[in-house]
């Protein structure tokens, strides 16, 4: 469903993404892990059609996003890490606007928007301006907006940030169910427990390249012996120096 081939993105002399290739089939929940500055957000923004790659291609459902952006984006819902919502729109107006971008309107959209808002406990606030929403409420609204037009693929950058435990649980269920029903979700996260519990496959990215990609079993195999949990695997693959340095700093 998502096919990335030799993707490279350079910012001047800095290479943010360096020739990565991967495929995410239909019905898979795919996790993207990596330390800060690894190139995850850049990769997701290229998949969403916001950034153009320096080289390489991205296909969504077999459609090349550079060659046929509208057809590719029609299949996609994107949730950025720092989402923007129009402050002076109400929650319901915002969902209606996003649905309209995908040519969807009418009673069905109203019904769906109401359901999504109810799911995230926002129904009572649906007619309030977004400027009065808390950080977590905005995050719930932006997640609802990605589902309102029922895309085939959802690309989401750090979905759990700002969510309370209940909303985080709902989101996990929603993602899992959505993937089970044949849709594809690609998400980046720093919460390793979430990735381990939810994702069918996980890619670990560092310095713009994929250090490992596969199921938990694959990752365990690719990490050195003894690593069982994702945190250990992650640290081994991305280097433990930082953790050791931390001890040094605290002991200084």
């Amino acid at each position, binding site marked *: 469903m998502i096919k990335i081939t030799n993707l490279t993105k350079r910012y001047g002399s800095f290479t943010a993404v360096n020739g990565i290739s991967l495929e995410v089939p239909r019905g898979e929940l795919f996790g993207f892990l990596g330390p800060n500055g690894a190139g995850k957000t850049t990769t997701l923004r290229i998949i969403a059609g*916001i950034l153009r790659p320096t080289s390489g291609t991205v296909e969504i459902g*077999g459609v090349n996003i550079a060659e046929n952006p509208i057809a590719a984006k029609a299949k996609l819902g994107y949730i950025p890490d720092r989402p923007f919502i129009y402050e002076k729109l109400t929650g319901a107006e915002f969902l209606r*606007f*996003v649905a309209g*971008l995908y040519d969807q309107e009418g009673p*069905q959209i109203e019904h769906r928007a109401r359901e999504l808002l109810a799911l995230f406990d926002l129904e009572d606030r649906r007619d309030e301006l977004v400027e009065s929403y808390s950080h977590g409420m905005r995050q719930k609204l932006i997640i609802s907006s990605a589902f309102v037009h029922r895309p085939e693929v959802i690309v989401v950058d750090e979905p759990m940030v700002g969510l309370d435990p209940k909303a985080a649980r709902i989101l996990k269920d*929603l993602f899992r169910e959505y993937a089970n029903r044949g849709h594809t979700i690609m998400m980046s996260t720093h919460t390793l427990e979430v990735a381990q519990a939810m994702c069918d496959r996980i890619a670990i990215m560092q310095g713009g390249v994929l250090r490992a990609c596969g199921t938990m079993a694959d990752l365990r195999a690719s990490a050195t012996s003894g690593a069982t949990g994702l945190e250990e695997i992650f640290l081994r693959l991305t280097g433990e120096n930082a953790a050791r340095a931390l001890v040094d700093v605290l002991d200084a």
Partner: protein
Amino acid sequence: MRDEGRGTADVLDAKPLTPSSQLQTLTPDSETAPLPNPSTRHLLIPKWLTARARTTSGERGNAIRLGVLVVFGLGFWSFIFFMVYRLLLFFKGVQEIGPLLAGKLLGLILVGFFSILLLSNIITALSSFFLARDLDLLVSGPVDWLKLYMAKLLETLTNSSWMVVLMAIPMFTAYGVVFSGGPLYPLVVLAAFLPYLILPAVVGSAFTLLLVNIFPARRTKDILTVVTVLAGCGLVLFFRLVRPERLARPEGFRSLVDFITILKGPTSPLMPSEWVQHAVMSWVNGRPELLPFYLLWSTAAAALVLGALLHRWLFAIGFSKAQESAEQFVQGGFIRRVAHGMLRPFGIVRRELVLKEVRVFFRDTTQWSQLILLAVLVMVYVFNIKFLPLRGEGMTFFLVNVVPFLNLVLAGFVLASIAARFIFPGVSLEGRTLWLLRSSPMSMRELLWSKFWVGTLPLLMLAVAIVGVTDYLLQVTAFMMVVSVLSITFMTLAIAGLAIGFGTFFPQFETENAAQIPTSFGGLMFMMTSILLIGLVVILEARPVYSYLSAEAYGTPIEPTAMVIGFGLSAVICGLATLAPIEAALRKMER
């Protein structure tokens, strides 16, 4: 928890929607399903809803704001209307060349408008096409390039042109009234003015598109800011040095040839401003011409098509580049060491606050580039004082010394404008970093006073320099020099205090552009209060100054009581206006 699980399932099980339901499975039908194609109107819905929410929200003080804006707006319109109206009446009375003069004036104004529109569109296009925060949402959606172009172009045009339109309304009205334009006149103006607004929007957006494809967007923004300020300054200087008021005094020219030469410049038959002028003047002169309308509309349409094509070719690449930040390395070891040394006696907290203020100011192009504008403002001001006709017949000692006293009003106004630009936005610019200062063990008093002094000291030097130089040019007496310098010193402190106070009470934390902060409601309130203060000081000092000038001119006795009361009260009021707003601001910050 089970309920929530069911809720999730319910959402996912919701009845299929059209056309997305077709997209859920990759059947042959889904490949041929029509692609989403949101209209330009749909893309503009958030702007419309935002504008509506802003006007209808029942926030406290909205009615007062509206009232102040209406009063100011009507006052502004009346002022422009009567200025142009009187000038046109005078022109109309001049035989033979009256309509020519009126047309030339219109041409000159329209050339100015066009330059302003072009610059404003270039700057605005950078924000609306490349840096606006809603672009991620729109660009990641299935939005057609042409619809996005039209929506963003309309947004750019509206944001860049509203001020010019507001100025043009009373101006064109005066032309219509003086030259009896008739009932169809507003439509004629609309038909001529609309393509005139479209042209700079298209050209400006295209220019920005090209620039963003060459430079990173943040660097482009810096370059554009400086270019705009320089161009704006050039325009101000040009109009000041041309001295358009001379057009109203033909007898001031050595010969008719000189006068005609002035009338000929600086317009060209290829400029859209000239077409609008021809369209409007031919109508009011009773000989309507269609050619200017053809030229305006066909050029606007052609520009729109070319602009759209350019957008299609370059926007995606440019937008992607715009997401990259310019690499900026900051050096300044020597200056840092010197500044550290100079500020050492004030302690670490004050030193770091002052250094932060200075660094942020000089690293923000939108901020420091305003210094260029300021320099031009001061130049124009001194230039005007220098050319005041205060020498010659009928100019008494009394008059020559009253003018520098009234000069305080003008100087005070200039200082208030500068404080509005540089001191008023201080607290607003802390914006989202305020949490850092507030959560630190530093008192808000330190923060506000450091902002006060960082802004006030340069302002004070400027104030004393302006008044000193202009007093020197006017050759005033020593007494008047002392009164002027002391008064402007007290007024500067008070204006700076007011700027800090109002800036704290009406912060604009969310703004992206520091240059927009002074034009907010709080900025308007600050300017009004400053003008009131200046007026009050001048009124209080008028009596003692009059007493002194009378004594010098006519030998009447000086009134010491009037002197003490007048100057004393002024000093007290300035002192209060300095301290009270800062104390009030402090209480607000600590609440």
